[in-house]
């Protein structure tokens, strides 16, 4: 079942709702991509799911349990991780400390933390190499790698990725999407919001189009791959 959003109305102020009744289902193990023009409310939707904003109407379910109204810091405990837009490493802490904080919610369980470290270092040898360096000293791509690695430390079920490729060079954009593809192989449930329609649709299983805070179209990926230009033209 995974993530379900039902008729959510939310915004930054009571008077001006940005989402005006949005529905979304992100099924287990699949990549669900949300696309739409600027201001459509894509990031707002992720922030509402994660508890930064409280919906004035509607509900959000994760594995059947309502998570509406929970504070952001409780989400990881529910098995949902969030990759923030832009930089989110702790720049003046080491790579190792960043990863350690990734495992914050079970910090007492040293064995589990050790295992998570082993997995991450095996998968990202470069991070192991730089583990004592301050995260701020890493290159843009390495920081993104660290952010993704940190995200998975607690073995969450669902990942919300907010504009994972924004501001990165084309080569790094490819790298980030390779990583997302690997995460998909590891059977995470992934929700991606991205301006980069082409790249995100490539790895999508299911696509939602948002426009002006409302659902526009949605459907399996193959329906969209071909109609892409038409859809984008609608936004202009």
């Amino acid at each position, binding site marked *: 079942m995974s993530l379900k959003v039902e008729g959510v109305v939310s915004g930054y102020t009571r008077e001006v709702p940005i989402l005006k009744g949005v529905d979304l289902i992100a099924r287990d193990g699949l990549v669900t991509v949300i696309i739409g023009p600027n201001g459509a409310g894509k990031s707002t939707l992720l922030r509402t799911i994660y508890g930064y904003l409280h919906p004035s109407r509607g509900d959000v379910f994760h594995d059947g349990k309502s998570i509406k109204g929970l504070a952001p*810091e409780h*989400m990881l405990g529910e098995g949902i991780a969030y990759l923030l837009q832009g930089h*989110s*490493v702790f720049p*003046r802490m080491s790579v190792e400390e960043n990863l350690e*904080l990734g495992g*914050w*919610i079970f910090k007492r369980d040293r064995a589990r933390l050790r295992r998570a470290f082993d997995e991450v270092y095996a998968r990202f040898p470069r991070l192991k190499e730089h583990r004592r360096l301050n995260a701020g000293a890493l290159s843009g791509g390495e920081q993104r790698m660290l952010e993704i690695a940190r995200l998975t430390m607690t073995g969450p079920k669902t990942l919300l990725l907010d504009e994972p490729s924004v501001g990165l060079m084309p080569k790094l954009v490819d790298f980030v999407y390779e990583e997302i593809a690997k995460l998909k192989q590891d059977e995470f449930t992934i929700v991606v919001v991205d301006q980069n329609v082409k790249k995100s649709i490539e790895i999508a299983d299911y696509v939602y189009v948002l426009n002006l805070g409302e659902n526009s179209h949605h459907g399996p990926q193959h329906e969209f791959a071909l109609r892409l230009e038409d859809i984008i033209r609608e936004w202009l």
Partner: protein
Amino acid sequence: MDLSLLADPAILSELVFQGLVRGAMYALMGIGLSLIFGILGVVNFAHGEFFMLGTYAMYFVSALLGLPFLAGVAAAAIGLFVVGVVVERALIEPLRQRAGRDWLLDSFVLTIGLMVILQNLALLGFGSRRRGITTMVEGSVVFGNVTITYERLAILALAVIIVGLLAAYIKFTDTGKAIRATAQDPEAAQTLGIDIKRIYTVAFGIGAALAGAAGALLISIFPAFPTVGYQPVLKSFAVVILGGLGNIPGAIAGGFLLGIVEAYAIFFMSAGWQSVITPLIIILVLVFRPQGLFTAQGERP
């Protein structure tokens, strides 16, 4: 200004030690203030009152209960931690819920109100009489012409220990790491499951505890009376500006620098004029290097 006096080792060492002791106090206060600013974004004008409450804690524990110096410092630190936690939960957190853009100014004004209340409650509760303890630790050691009192050594040693403990706490404990993370990126910290509200409370408590400890340590120089916190808070803001707002190592360096400069100023000028020196130095720093003496060039306020 007869600089040749500095050639006398007795005078020189006296000035250096005076400077270091004052510097230790300023550093402790400055760290607390910087911590509170760096993590909560609050400019805590009531910081001097935390110092003041620390002096009273030391007085009551030592002079009235007869417990040793260390007990007084511990009592002040723990007591002020509790006070800080209560203040943060009762006043600052509610304001944070309400305020938006004007957080910096609004919280500043809130702490001004708190300062007035604490100062005057102290006046009502304790009276304006100065309660001092002239010497906490007896005895001194002599090297040639130079006399160093054990008291001064104790103050310096305790200050260093406190800063060391704090540094270890921040660097090695889980909560300490969470505090650093929250200071660097509160949203990211939240996505990792860190309860930043609790972090804010702990950080404020620690800041208050440091100010309380400073007050306790320096009871022999600053006796306990309701408005004793004013000079220390003025100086702590000076230290924090010297070091750069939010820059904790800078606060330490700034604290000792200011302490030593003041010791010299007191010696060479009349007591009255040395109180003009600090504001003047700060004005100069604010004009020419507002990010502080110890912050990287790029970070302009």
